[in-house]
Structures are given as structure tokens and as C-alpha cells.
């Protein structure tokens, strides 16, 4: 019996190990390719075991550190500001509609809910943001469209407020003379840290990974986030060189020398590495967040 169990454990662990490797192996191909020499890529393609190592791709990216650094700055900025703003307006809308005594509560809840069922789609959204609010090529374009708040999170937070914060607590604070705003940020918010952390983590991931707003609303390289640069370099590997201020002739000679096949991998490594490094520290909350979202 125990021997049977032991071998069963071995079998399922081997299966899971194989699945885990399948999940991770593309990343190792990416990293190994980025440190392969051009010659060995031309010879053997992208492989896990390159014949010859070379840091030339990173050397090339290093010569463009100011553009890449700037893009990282933009990414960090929109992630921090976007997440903070998102948490603020989500909780500020969710709290009043969680209060059973609020007049017109159902109307407001419906306004939030309806956005989950029906949306205008890309074309009108794009036209409203560009023609009415003139968001194109501003930092707002990376922060606002689609990402700032979503109805699902509002309802999630509202449910948390309704089920985890005893109405008697709010009542008691009110009798003690605390105003509504004070009750909200001194009592309700501190008691809601778990849900706030979950929503905040997912908002941060959304902002960090967003390339859609960059693709749709930004053409000015001043506002390119790291994801937008990745997106541009996917189709135009010379993007960094042709987009920099280097004078004509030296730019063309530089283009000729770009180790383009390995640079393509190196830029993706630059884009994904921070997430891979940070992931072990927040994976626990990420997994917990997935199940919270699923049960609404």
C-alpha cells in the first residue's frame, strides 16, 4: 500500500515537473539566445546551448541606455501612479454603494454593473479619447483609457465591504461623531487591506504589461513605455538606432553592425526580467488573487 502510494507520488510529481518545465522553457530559450553570438545563431539558430557566448546584444542595448532608461521610467511612473489612482477611485466608488442606507444605491450599482455587460467598443472609445479629450500623445493616454478602473473590481470591493465590515462598527463610529469621510479612511480602508492589496497587485500588473494604449494612443517616442518599445522592435529591430539622434552616416554604419538576431531576444529579456525577478516575492498573493476574482 505505502509502496504503491510512493510510486504514485513519484509519477504525478514527474508529470507536474514536466508541465512546469514546459511553462518555463521558453524563457530559458529567450535568455540563452540573447547571450549567443551572431555567428552561432546563424549557424544553429536560437538554442538552449549556444556554441559561442556573446554579450554584444546587451552592449548594443547599453549604447541606447538613455532611451531604454526613459522607457523604464515611464513604465514605473504609470505603474505607480496608475495603481494608486486606481485603488483610490475604485474604493471611493465601491464604499458608498456598499452602504445599504445610501439613497439611490441600486441605481449607482446598476451603472457600474451595466459596464460589464455592454461596451461601446474600440472605435467610439478611440474617437472620444482622441477627438473629445485630445489624449493622444500625452502621459494621460497611458494612464486613463480602459485601465484606471473597471466595474468588476468595484463590485468585488463592494462585496468585501458588505461582507467583512460590520455595519455596527460604522454606526458606532458615526455615533461617536466621526464624519462619513473619516469613517471611510480611518475604519473601512484599514480593515480592507487584503482586498486592496489584491486589486492593487492586479492593477499594477495591468499597467506594467500594457502595450495596447501605447500602440493606440502614442506615436511620440517621448511617452514610449518599455512595452511599447518591445512592440516597436518586434517589427523594426533597428527602431532604437533609427529613432535616436545620431547623425545620418554613423547611424547607417551602426545599423549595419547591430547583432540583430540576438538583440531581438535581449530586448525581450530586458522587458521581462524585472517581472521574473519580482515574481517569487508576490506569487503567493497573485495566486490568492486569482481565486478571489473567480468567486466574485
Amino acid at each position: 500500500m505505502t509502496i504503491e502510494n510512493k510510486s504514485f507520488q513519484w509519477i504525478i510529481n514527474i508529470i507536474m515537473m514536466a508541465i512546469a518545465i514546459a511553462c518555463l522553457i521558453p524563457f530559458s530559450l529567450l535568455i540563452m539566445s540573447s547571450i549567443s553570438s551572431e555567428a552561432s545563431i546563424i549557424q544553429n539558430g536560437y538554442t538552449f546551448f549556444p556554441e559561442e557566448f556573446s554579450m554584444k546584444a546587451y552592449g548594443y542595448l547599453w549604447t541606447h541606455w538613455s532611451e531604454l532608461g526613459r522607457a523604464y521610467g515611464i513604465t514605473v511612473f504609470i505603474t505607480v501612479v496608475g495603481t494608486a489612482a486606481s485603488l483610490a477611485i475604485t474604493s471611493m466608488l465601491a464604499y458608498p454603494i456598499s452602504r445599504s442606507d445610501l439613497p439611490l444605491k441600486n441605481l449607482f450599482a446598476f451603472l457600474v454593473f451595466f459596464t460589464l455587460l455592454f461596451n461601446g467598443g474600440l472605435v467610439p472609445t478611440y474617437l472620444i479619447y482622441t477627438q473629445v479629450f485630445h489624449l493622444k500623445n500625452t502621459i494621460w493616454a497611458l494612464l486613463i483609457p480602459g485601465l484606471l478602473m473597471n466595474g468588476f473590481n468595484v463590485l468585488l470591493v463592494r462585496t468585501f465591504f458588505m461582507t467583512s465590515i460590520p455595519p455596527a462598527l460604522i454606526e458606532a463610529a458615526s455615533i461617536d461623531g466621526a464624519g462619513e469621510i473619516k469613517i471611510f479612511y480611518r475604519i473601512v480602508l484599514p480593515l480592507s487591506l487584503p482586498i486592496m492589496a489584491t486589486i492593487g497587485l492586479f492593477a499594477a500588473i495591468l499597467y506594467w504589461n500594457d502595450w495596447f494604449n501605447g500602440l493606440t494612443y502614442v506615436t511620440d517616442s517621448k511617452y514610449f513605455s518599455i512595452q511599447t518599445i518591445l512592440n516597436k522592435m518586434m517589427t523594426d529591430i533597428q527602431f532604437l538606432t533609427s529613432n535616436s539622434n545620431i547623425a545620418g552616416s554613423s547611424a547607417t554604419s551602426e545599423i549595419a553592425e547591430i547583432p540583430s538576431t540576438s538583440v531581438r531576444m535581449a530586448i525581450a529579456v530586458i522587458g521581462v526580467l524585472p517581472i521574473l525577478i519580482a515574481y517569487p516575492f508576490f506569487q503567493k498573493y497573485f495566486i490568492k488573487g486569482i481565486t478571489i476574482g473567480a468567486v466574485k
Partner: protein
Amino acid sequence: MMSHLAQTAPLAKTSQETNIKKKQGLKKLKRYLPLFLLMIPGLVYLIINNYLPLFGMVIAFKDINYSKGIFGSDWIGLKNFEFLFRSSDAFIITRNTLLYNGAFIIINTVIAVAIAIILNDIKNKFLSRFYQSVIVLPYLISMVVVGYLAFSVFSIDSGLMNKTILPMLGMKDISWYTEPQYWPYILTIVHAWNGAGFLCVIYLASIISIDPEYYEAATLDGASKWQQVRAITIPLITPVITMMTLLAIGRIFYSDFGLFYQVPMNSGALADTTNVIDTYVFRGLMVLGDIGMSSAAGVYQSIVGFVLVIVSNYIVRKVNRENALF
């Protein structure tokens, strides 16, 4: 905790009710004014991001003219829709959207449930947690990066497929990014790699909540692992599977734009096999500047999508009222 809530809640309610009765309209407004103020930023955002575009859908029925503005352009009735549905595009993008998403729903559900069942049997808690965090990692990566990962495998000149795997099998190079017949499989695999782990964590949570006594009793009766899975695990998580699947069917008209835009690298030769409604609308708007056609496709998507959500939710309600969205 729960019993404490149950005791205090009715008390609070009655005292609130008497409170409200005492106060008159103006006083009531004054009391709730701070709460209304709190809602303003969120409501303004909903108006800008969701409700204005909703009214903006009228452009599908107009001949857009920027100098006259969105709402000032001339009405042309259903002309845009006539063009859209007369072209072969409408059929192709609808077919692709439904077939891809339909396949994704089935395949990812099967993979996710299978992995969740295996994971649940892993005794070593540390390893179990390790597997979980590894299988959801692909979900965390942006689709642009996924596009790069796919490129490292399928690149025509230097990809792992053409340079290592196909030569090992003694096969000739394949020009992946110009040969459409492979893409339904490639996109399905990439999507499973990207999203199955996420679903798996959800199913694992529902398997973990099954009472262990069922399994203990079954083991005593001499049931094998496979019999336990078939007779206990699967039936008990079927409501969750049904619900997740119906919700996914409700969203079947919407695709993962990044998957269909980034992974085929926007290759024109693959257009007919990789174009879905979302990419069609995007290209119509951003590349071709054909606002009439793309807005008509967008309205088509919104309306059919809305009907599907309502219908699938109606069915969820029939199955299990608690799991319904509304």
C-alpha cells in the same frame, strides 16, 4: 465572526431605520453628501470611459467627417453594415472568433481540470505550491513578450523549430509566418500555455474544498484513484466547470486581442486564419482608417456579445442561482 455579525446586523438595521425616519429630505442629503462626493471620480470615469463611447456607437450609422465632429456627421443608416456583411470579411472574422474561442474554452478547461486533479494529489506542500506558481507565470507575462517567445521558436531563419527540431526529425524548413495552415494549432498551444494555469488555480481551489471524508470512505471501500476522480472529484466540481464555461461562452465574441495581434506578428499572409473581430476592428481603425467598416464591426460585436452574456447568464441562473452574475 459570522455569528457575531448575525447578532449585530439586525440591531444596526433597526437603529438605522429609526434614524432615517427622523431625518427629513434636506437633512438626509446633507448627511449623505460626503458619500456622494466620494463617488464622483469613479462615476466621472465611468461616464468618460464607458458611457460616452456607448453613445459614440452612433458613428456606425454615420458617414464620419472629422470637421463636423462625431455627433455632427451625416446619418447614412445601415450602409456601413451592408458593406460589412456583403464582404467576405464578416463571415471570416465571425467564424475565426467562434472557432478559436470555442476550441480555447474546451482545451483549456480539459487541461486545467486535469492538472488541478493531479496537483491536488501531490502530498509535498512545498512542491505543490511551486508547481502552482510556475504554471500561472505565463499568465503574468505581457502578450508582446509572448510574441517574442513564439518568435524564438518559429522564426524562419533562426527559430528552434526550423533550426533544431525539424532537422532532428529529418523534415524541411517551414516558413511559419507565411503559411496559414499551422496557425490554428500554434495559437491554440500558445493560448493553452498562457492561460491554462490560471484556470487550473481556480479549479484547484474548488477541488481543495471537497470534504476529504468522501475520499477516505472511498479508499476504505477499495476504490482506486481513478474511480475516486470519476465518482467524487469530477461530479463535485461540475457546477464550477459549468459556470466558468458558461461565463466564457458569454464572452465568446471577444478575443484576446494581444494573442491574435502579437503572436502572428501582424503578418499579412496569415490574415485570413488569424483575423478575429477585435483585430479586424483595430486594423480598420488604426491601419486602414476605415472608420465606417470597423465601427460597424464593433457594434456587431457589442450587440451579439451582449445577447450572449444575457443568454449564458440566464442559463447559469437556471443551473445554480448563486453563481449567476445577475
